[in-house]
């Protein structure tokens, strides 16, 4: 079973994402900020990461930079999932190594389409 790390400081969002992704046959790991997400990645690199942007301690953008510099850190497919819904943020995310980008609010159709787009489904 493929693994997906869901990184969001909102437990409600993590719960919604978990329900959707478990329905797509992913095993879910959760983290509430970028630092905890990075620790999780050092233990085991997931196949996919659903990543919020604005979080305390370490935000999603900084986490992504750190992840991509890690040995093997270019492997996980990273899909941002954020309320930062403007072109400038999307362009920054892509430049930093994001594979896809979900603008909140989201639903199962959108998550499925984006995960298909990057070859995770």
């Amino acid at each position, binding site marked *: 079973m493929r693994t997906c790390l869901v990184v969001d400081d909102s437990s409600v969002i993590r719960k919604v994402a978990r329900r959707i992704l478990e329905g797509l046959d992913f095993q879910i790991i959760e983290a509430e900020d970028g630092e905890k997400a990075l620790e999780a990645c050092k233990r085991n690199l997931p196949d996919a990461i659903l990543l919020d942007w604005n979080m305390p301690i370490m935000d999603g953008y900084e986490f992504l930079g750190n992840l991509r510099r890690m040995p093997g850190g270019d492997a996980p497919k990273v899909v941002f999932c954020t309320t930062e819904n403007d072109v400038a943020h999307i*362009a920054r995310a*892509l430049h930093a190594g994001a594979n*896809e980008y979900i*603008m909140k609010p989201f*639903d199962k159709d959108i998550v499925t389409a*984006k995960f298909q*787009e990057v070859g995770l489904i």
Partner: protein
Amino acid sequence: MTPLDYEFLRKILKERSGLDLSADKQYLVESRLIPLARRVGLSGIGELVLKLKAGTEPLTSEVVEAMTTNETFFFRDKIPFDHLKEAVLPALAQARASRRALRIWCAASSTGQEPYSIAMCVKEFAALAGWRVEIVASDLSQDVLVKSKAGIYSQFEVQRGLPIQLLVKHFKQVGEMWQLNADIRGMVQHRQLNLLQDFSHLGTFDVIFCRNVLIYFDQDTKVGIFERLSRMLEPDGVLALGAAESVVGLCDAFKPYPDRRGLYRPNATRAPRAGAAAMPLRAVAAATR
């Protein structure tokens, strides 16, 4: 909705659009027509049918549009667009190298996601840079064509099937909506068109996308449309159908494109057939009754 009301609606939908509703689709009719009835100040389907029987043409058109507007999204099913990029456009880029022009028809184009997906594929295909590529988008519904021409989509619509790189490259943000850039919109011409009626005036095409519309027609109507579509395609042209559609077993106007599921080519080996020209609407309706 009474059985008689349902039969009346089935009949006019068949005659006007070719939509072939089976006997168990009352829920579909109710879900689409009750909101329409209320919007025009009627209590429900019963009153709507009475109005239609009295012969109000604009209302009849609205009913047909409400029943024939179907879901669409960018790069729907993905595979036909992969075929377009990997096989169809490369072959046509070679075959039309001296002409440097292509014509693509997107029949039943709805709110534009399909023709604009094709336009983005063409735009991204470097070998066609500088070519004259004409994409014709047609639909029965004037409402969806208005939306398609504007090329403005909600955040939800641009996130279903559209890769984020293409969103950034080919759209601009307008408040909470996203509008396709003028160069992509300019590649698509819009036409209101009923597939049951003559469409030979559109001329011939190199590619025809006719996806997820013929599934609503009965067999005789499908065969008639396939015959006429085959006359609209260049001999080396390509027809793309929806994932649940096929010409196999229906008629020999097309043959499957090798190793590309959902694509078909005109069948050059079959004998020319008389009487396959456009059928007048009434003749098609009569033939399918």
